[in-house]
């Protein structure tokens, strides 16, 4: 298990970033993909927006973007039957058991 997975297991959604290059390193990695220096880890803002979405049965799934950089796919926990592009969402739950799981609201 890497750092990202350890934290995800605890319900923390974190990213690597490089202070030297002043950039988010995503997907998470131990080294900066620009300078190969060591990364720092920090929590990602839980406020994101919907880039695209669709539905499987009654489940709305979508690509959400955080901090204008980090994109993940997750399930939208909503009473509505649809969603909107650019809609503001929050990461409400994340986990790592068999696989990764992200839930937005």
């Amino acid at each position, binding site marked *: 298990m890497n750092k*990202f997975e350890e934290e995800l297991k605890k319900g923390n959604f974190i990213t690597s970033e490089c202070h030297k290059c002043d950039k988010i390193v995503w*997907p*998470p990695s131990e080294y900066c993909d620009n300078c190969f220096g060591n990364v720092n880890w920090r929590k990602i803002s839980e406020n994101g927006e919907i*880039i*695209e*979405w*669709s*539905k*499987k049965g009654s489940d709305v*799934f979508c*690509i959400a973007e955080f901090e204008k950089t980090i*994109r*993940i*796919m*997750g*399930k939208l926990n909503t009473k509505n039957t649809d969603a909107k*592009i650019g809609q503001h969402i929050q990461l409400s739950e994340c986990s790592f058991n068999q*696989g*990764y*799981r*992200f839930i937005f609201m």
Partner: protein
Amino acid sequence: MKKVAVVGYGNTKFSTDDIPIESLLLESTKEVFNTTNNLSQDLIDGVIVSTNDNSKYLGAILSELSGIKPKISHTVEHLCSSGTAATVSAFSYIASGLADIILVAGADKSDNPGQVLDWDRSRGEFTRPIYWASMFTKAHKRKFNTTEEELAVVSAKNHKQALDNPHAYSHKAYTIPEIMNSKNITDDLRMLDCSYSCSGSSSILLASEDIAKKFTDSPVWISGIGQKTSSASFTKNDLTNLDTTKSAADIAYNMAKATANEIDVAEIHDAFSICELMAVEDLGLAKKTTGAEFVRNLFNTENRQINPRGGLIGAGHPLGATGISQIVEITQQLQNKAEKRQVSNANKGLVHNMSAAATSSTVLILES
């Protein structure tokens, strides 16, 4: 750099049968030997296997089963475009003079592990290809007003064309309403808009210009190669453009000193209906925003220019074999040996093969 030609080929039937990977590879290799003039084991300098199967050392295993003792032998894995990636490796060995004759054998089983990329964390629990395909389709509908019916035309055309491909998984034609009414996988994807993961194998024999004519009177030359990889994570992609396909096509056309309007016949990577609509535009075969109209016109006029063997949707998709099967089809077309599938006056052909939601693409130009 030496010129390199396709001088022989073999296919198995694509199916959902559970067949050992070694048997699949041997089956299409046997076809190459059965159908290629003057070929003997001692002439082969290299055996390259393309697969997503977890078995090890398949280059050596296939060589032993075929009685070949090659100088070069190894496996190439690059998900759905493993086949063209292996072909580019073989091309390079021959062009550089390291080898003269190479067998490239691709195969996968229908339950192969190449369908899900575990590493791509960004997909969350939505790991299967149907989810990126739904995102592509939804985004395309939104941006270009693409309709369900326009998507169904792709599937109707490719299923119909597969009827004349004896190796295809599907031998059933579907009407546009049947496709539109097929089971909803998601709100944006119908069952019949998806390609099926199959068991199957395809092999080709590549040879240098010095010896190509020993095996065939009509070698088919690989005149252009373009490849591009942008990432492994799907979510970084632009959802309405196949950027890596565009880059790979530019490189390939440039190398072949050819333009898109010279392409007489093309095998393109229709993993899902939406992919064909995007690819015909990004390969320059149709103008931007006219992909759906272009494909509909082909369907209405029974023009087999795009995916004459039925594409992935009609022929099935044994991942490691797909790129090689596409090359076999274009070779047959340029040799005027494609029988009922034959496109008239085919002199220049194109192969488009991609991986993991177009994070990586290969484009090849072939000439008679």
